[in-house]
């Protein structure tokens, strides 16, 4: 396959060169877009040759476009100048001819027009009038009305003695030209983005790729273009690889139900579907009717479609036979179905035989359910499945439980407020910050688009504080090379101070603003801020100073720590008074209950008393809940059981106590109920 791909790359390269020679540079770039996608799967030399050709052709295309645009502009402004002259507006004419001469200093028509316009202005104005024009032009210039300032400044600049007018006019022309270029650039970006979207919709993926790449060449930080380019490349790649590796149907496996008969109104279907290109949806039909559809959201980390989708879905059954069809559809539109017919038998109490057969039937049903569970359990026991996490922050969203209210509150408040999350050690502050990062990155509902950056201050010395913050920002936000060049930050740079940080932050925020149409908000999620207690007041004050800056309405911080030292000796405002505080409490019983049960649901069973015992012993601290669960599940596995019993929890208590005591540097057992027993 690699040989076929290489051959295809060479063919596309040749086609591109041929097209370019005949003037079809845009079409050539489309071929190279396809070649690039293929070459990425090959060796770096092939990819380099494709990229070099792309660069060369893009350069040619840009030059051609620039020349055409320049010629058009010169022609238009020459016409403007001549018309203005004819209509008796020499000042406006002179502005137009000057503009042409900026683009083409030897343009004869413009030189001649300029002379005529100058003569007419000098003939029709006095020195005093020109002095007045200068004052007017300067005022307009200083008020930022550069275009309006050009006319009066053009008149004023005709006075030989008024060098200041000429200098101001020159600056005005440069600014107006810069603004014009910016406007054109913005319009071009919007046009190319629209075109790219239309091409994507029309299934012309390589062409769309070229459109989005063009946007990124002039606006490297454009997140939307980057995202759409990724999509276009993926689709181009799929289309190409389909030639050698045609899309395959997804696989679909149903674990439950196992029997053909079922008693009860609601049957639970349990299974998993996988596909190498990603799952688009899973559809459930009962009796020919679609009764439900699962459409998995894209992966949070890469934005790609999910390739594996486990599902547990309840279906309502009618008495008698129920034809059920489960269909998995992949992103390429291929599908795989599994059919089964489940006969719903009436419940015992619905039949005449209810009373005599109740006991026997119950045992049978239980056995059926337990059989399936036993199968899963046996596999899990072989693998020593233990999903609980004690000690490290929880980064897997599937293992994140509770805190819904707090998350909603934070999201609501972060629009306009910086926040400090306080809470005892190991209450889950770091885990919550990571969770918040994902939530903020995906938040589409508010007026702001958040760009979250996680910073861990542990071990950061005072001298390196601002440098460490900026290092994380630069790392996390993948800034464009153009922005990177304007920063004072260098990776190993010493002597990086608050002022440098503020300087750089302004530029980072400016780039973020180009990535979204909403208001950009950089969200610094700063963990372990207790470190700041060890810093001098000056550094703390300078941190506060960052949030007093004019750009600080595009900046928000969420800090987390055990607590901020509040003894304040300085006469100025306490540094910590720019944020509101929120305490991270222990879990509610329901949250803790979910954390115990859900990670092993359907695999192992918890004795209700064991769960209650963990909730009591842990005092609803998530870290302790996890720790008890880890040890209790391990003990259960050692005993070859599938049910976690109270005795497992009691045994776990001894281990947890011992670990707590060791962590506290004390060999004595620590009473579970004592506050602070969990200090790390």
């Amino acid at each position: 396959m690699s040989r076929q791909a290489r051959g295809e790359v060479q063919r596309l390269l040749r086609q591109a060169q041929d097209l370019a020679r005949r003037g079809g540079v845009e079409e050539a770039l489309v071929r190279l877009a396809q070649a690039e996608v293929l070459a990425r799967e090959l060796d770096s030399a092939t990819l380099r040759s494709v990229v070099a050709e792309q660069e060369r052709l893009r350069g040619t295309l840009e030059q051609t476009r620039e020349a055409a645009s320049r010629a058009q502009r010169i022609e238009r402004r020459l016409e403007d100048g001549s018309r203005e002259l004819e209509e008796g507006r020499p000042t406006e004419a002179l502005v137009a001819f000057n503009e042409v001469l900026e683009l083409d200093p030897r343009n004869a028509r413009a030189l001649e027009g300029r002379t005529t316009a100058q003569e007419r202005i000098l003939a029709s104005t006095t020195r005093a009038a020109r002095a007045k024009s200068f004052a007017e032009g300067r005022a307009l210039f200083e008020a930022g009305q550069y275009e309006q300032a050009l006319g009066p400044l053009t008149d004023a600049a005709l006075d030989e003695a008024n060098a200041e007018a000429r200098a101001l006019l020159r600056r005005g022309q440069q600014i107006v030209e810069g603004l014009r270029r910016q406007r054109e650039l913005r319009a071009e970006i919007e046009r190319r983005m629209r075109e790219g979207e239309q091409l994507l919709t029309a299934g012309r993926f390589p062409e769309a790729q070229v459109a989005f790449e063009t946007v990124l060449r002039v606006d490297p930080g454009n997140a939307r273009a980057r995202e759409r380019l990724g999509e276009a490349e993926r689709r181009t790649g799929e289309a190409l690889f389909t030639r050698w590796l045609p899309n395959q149907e997804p696989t679909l496996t149903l674990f439950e139900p196992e029997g053909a008969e079922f008693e009860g109104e609601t049957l639970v279907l349990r299974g998993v579907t996988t596909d190498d290109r990603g799952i688009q949806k899973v559809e459930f039909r009962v009796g020919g009717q679609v009764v439900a559809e699962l459409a998995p959201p894209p992966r949070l980390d890469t934005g790609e479609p999910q390739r594996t989708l486990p599902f547990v879905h309840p279906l309502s059954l009618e008495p008698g036979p129920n034809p059920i069809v489960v269909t998995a559809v992949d992103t390429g539109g291929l599908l795989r179905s599994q059919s089964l017919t489940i006969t719903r038998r009436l419940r015992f109490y619905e039949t005449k035989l209810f009373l005599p057969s109740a006991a026997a039937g119950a045992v049978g049903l239980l056995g059926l359910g337990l059989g399936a569970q036993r199968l899963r359990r046996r596999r899990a026991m072989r693998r020593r499945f233990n999903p609980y996490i004690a000690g490290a922050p929880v980064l897997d969203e599937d293992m994140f439980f509770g805190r819904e209210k707090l998350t909603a509150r934070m999201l609501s408040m972060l629009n306009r407020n910086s926040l400090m999350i306080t809470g005892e050690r190991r209450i889950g502050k770091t885990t919550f910050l990571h969770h918040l990062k994902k939530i903020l990155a995906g938040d589409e509902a508010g007026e702001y688009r958040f760009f979250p950056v996680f910073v861990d201050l542990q071990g950061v010395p005072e001298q390196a504080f601002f440098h460490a913050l900026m290092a994380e920002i630069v790392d996390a936000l993948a800034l464009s090379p153009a922005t990177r060049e304007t920063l004072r930050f260098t990776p190993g740079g010493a002597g990086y101070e608050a002022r440098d940080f503020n300087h750089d932050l302004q530029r980072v925020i400016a780039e973020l603003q180009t990535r979204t149409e909403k208001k950009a908000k950089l969200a610094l999620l700063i963990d372990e801020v207790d470190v700041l207690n060890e810093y001098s007041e000056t550094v703390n004050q300078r941190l506060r100073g960052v949030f007093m800056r004019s750009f600080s309405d595009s900046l928000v911080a969420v800090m987390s720590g055990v607590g901020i030292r509040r003894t304040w000796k300085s006469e100025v405002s306490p540094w910590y008074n720019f944020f509101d505080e929120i305490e991270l409490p222990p879990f509610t019983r329901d949250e803790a209950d979910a954390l115990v049960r859900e990670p092993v649901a359907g695999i192992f069973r918890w004795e209700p008393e064991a769960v209650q015992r963990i909730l009591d012993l842990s005092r609803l601290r998530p870290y302790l809940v996890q720790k008890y669960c880890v040890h209790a599940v391990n003990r259960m596995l050692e005993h070859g059981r599938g049910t976690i019993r109270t005795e497992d929890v009691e045994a776990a208590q001894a281990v947890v106590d011992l670990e707590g005591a060791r962590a506290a540097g004390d060999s004595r057992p620590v009473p579970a109920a004592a506050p602070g027993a969990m200090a790390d």
Partner: protein
Amino acid sequence: MRNPFVVGSWVRDADFFGRAELIREILDGERHSLWVLGARRLGKTSLLREVEHRTHRSRETPFVALYWDLQGSADARGLAETLLGSVEDSEPFRRATDVSVDHLESLPVAEMLATIVRRTVRAGWRLLLLVDEAEELLMVGRAEPNALARIRGVLTRGPDVRTVVTATRLLARIDEEAGLATSPFLQGFIPPVYLTPLSPDESRALLARGSFAAEEVQTIVERTASHPFLLQLLASRLFESRDLAATLDQLAMDEMVANFFAVDFQTLEEDERRLLTEVVREGTRTRRELAGALGQSEDSLEPSVYGLTKLGYLAKDGEGFRLGNWFFERWLRRSLSAASRAR
């Protein structure tokens, strides 16, 4: 709808409420040196940021504004650093005056200021220098009184530069502690202009953002006495909880609020603290009763009563005075009882 209230951060433009008269005095008044005296979290930074914002947007103003946050300066070199940072931060200022950091770098702070004024005037403007956290000058003055004297010389240069400093009343100590050989630092800046709590109508306008019931609005205005920080904090928490009684109880016991009062209380003079303690112990007191309890004449007590009323610590109650707001009263009572238990 997301929480529209702002706790802690400065505000401007649509988020800024009230202060119309004070802003008029800053922009259109006769004085070229003003000290805006305000307690902690009364909105000093927001006031300066709003003035800066309005100046940048105005076509009629003769001023170009520069906001200078002194916090963390510590000494004359630090002042120069924060001033450079301010210039870097303000694109409208740089554009209007054509001042760049390169013109200023490596100059001592007084010369830096003088250069800024000179270039501002040359560009056809007058400088409106908005100096925040001016208590930092106390530290500079103790260590380098000559540098402070030179800075004062530029700040009070007359019509070319209008200087507005904001600080708590701690700044009043500067002339005692810095001991300038030339004119006292605060000459021209005093009498201070007080930054008061908002008016009830301004508070209601702010609270309208939360769509609260009329009775809730009334309770919030009463309990906070329109103190902007307490108003925003209570409104923000109520917006999330929608339970006013519980929110009031929580806030009254909140550690952050307690710390705010404790820090704020320390900015007052000893006599003022005694006066407030007397009121919280005995309830509403007349001038005469207060003078008797503190062993002073009513006349000598008047400046303290006036200042504390302006800053929102005291409120008129018939002929007498009571504590300004419910939260402060609860905190002071608790602190006094804790202190007496400790004794």
